[in-house]
């Protein structure tokens, strides 16, 4: 099963809307609580990242027949300049505007990696694709 959502650049007021829909869907299906919590946190953080840092893009939710889940966040740029730094807890390049909205604590990517079972990130100046995997019995 596939679902696809669009995320627009700098649309701070819609922050979390896609994650809410995805969370609602996964709850309706009836995933176990511990897994739901990890997926919700990862999805929310990744969605916020797209809004703050990227030029916009799509979020895809893929559910395999056996129940495994993939979330793919792909944007159109500008890419992450220094991935190693971005993966360091507390490091942030968020703009003043993003911080005014309470975002940009520098915990986004490290948090996402912590709660997901598979974490894969590809980045160039043309865009970033973050692929997260979740297992039923990790």
């Amino acid at each position, binding site marked *: *099963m596939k679902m696809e959502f669009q995320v627009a650049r700098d649309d701070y007021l819609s922050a*979390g809307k896609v*994650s*809410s829909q995805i*969370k609602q869907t996964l*709850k*309706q*299906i*009836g*995933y*176990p*609580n511990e897994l*739901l*919590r990890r997926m*919700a*946190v990862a999805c*929310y953080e990744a969605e916020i990242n797209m809004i703050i840092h990227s030029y916009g893009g799509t979020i895809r939710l893929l*559910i395999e*027949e*056996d*129940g495994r889940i993939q979330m793919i966040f792909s944007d159109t740029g500008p890419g992450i300049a220094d991935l190693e730094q971005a993966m360091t807890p507390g490091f942030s390049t968020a703009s003043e505007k993003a911080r005014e909205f309470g975002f940009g604590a520098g915990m986004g990517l490290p948090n996402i990696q912590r709660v997901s079972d598979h974490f894969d990130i590809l980045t160039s100046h043309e865009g970033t694709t973050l692929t997260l995997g979740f297992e*039923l019995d990790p």
Partner: protein
Amino acid sequence: MKSVISYTLSHCQKCLKCLKVCPTEAITIVQERVHIDSRRCINCGHCIEVCNTQGLQGKGSTLVDLDNYDYTVALLPSALFSCTKNAKEAAQLVEAIRRLGFDEVVEMSAIEGAIQHRVKQRIKDAVMHPLISSFCPVVNRLIRLRYPMLLDRLLDLDYPNEIAADLIRTQRTGKGKVGIFCFCECVSKLQLARYPYGNRHSQIDHAVSIGDHFPLIRALKDNEASSIELCRSGLESASLHHDALKGLKVLEADGQDKVQQVLELAEFGQLDQFDYLSLSFCINGCIGGRLLWGNPFEAELHLKKLLETAKKPAVDEDLIPFGSHQEESVSDLLTIQEKLKLFEKVNEVMEKLPHFDCGACGFASCRNMAENIATGKRKLTDCRVLRNDEVKK
């Protein structure tokens, strides 16, 4: 847990208001009758509020059972006193309730106060924050049904009236068969007692609606007053303001909309900067309970006045045990693969339905209808909108 909402067919105008207002889609109309699904009903009472013809009601025990006990105790939660203008009137209320035929009246503020101290201790000891209050039965049911990811954040403290009843029972041994009657300020608390809704785990024998006994209480009330003293932190726990939790980052949310918004955010881990989420489904906390005869705003004024003279200390907090509510858990019968198949089937049906959520089929939403079609309980032709389109062709 059972639904305490009772339905009277002869009063029902089939207006569908209850169907629309139910936050958990527990209500369906089957063969022109309201049907309430106990597994989904959270006993919030919204359906009672919108029903103009008293087709839906929340009733508690009567007092006829007083004769079945050797010694009877009336249990009064602090919220009840928000209906009285000052300490004198509060004492008159206690006396009037005693005159209903009780051997003893226990007002709970000193126990509720001690519970607040327990809450504070629990928050300080906790590794994961925020913790969530466990005192509103509606919120607890809502979390169980809709926000199960947060279940392990609920405080491990029982309902104050349950804790109070337990204490009273141990302290009144030797008095024969003790009957504890709790006067409830909201419909959801009616479900907690042994009677009338059969919660066999409870230490409370009977849950009584304070509102239903108001005419009698008023008739019995005069200038004579019991000597009572109220406890500040206990009284406060019936509203949204908790001085006892000073120094902690507490988020207080009341009413359905706020509570749901808070729970949504908490699921994303976006409220982790708070120590404690104090949640109440009624406006302004328990003083907004719909079985009270005042309104939640006047109640707040009254409470402020009462706080001026509330000097009684809380009981020793070591008397308050930790431990969660006894709730029957729903077992998961389907595997995730089976759940996925069902979900996809429901989605396929959804594509054919109009998405109006008109309620004409008797279900609150098209999704609810689709679930019933997918499991073979309804047919697509039961959708009145589709049937109308068919006729036009």
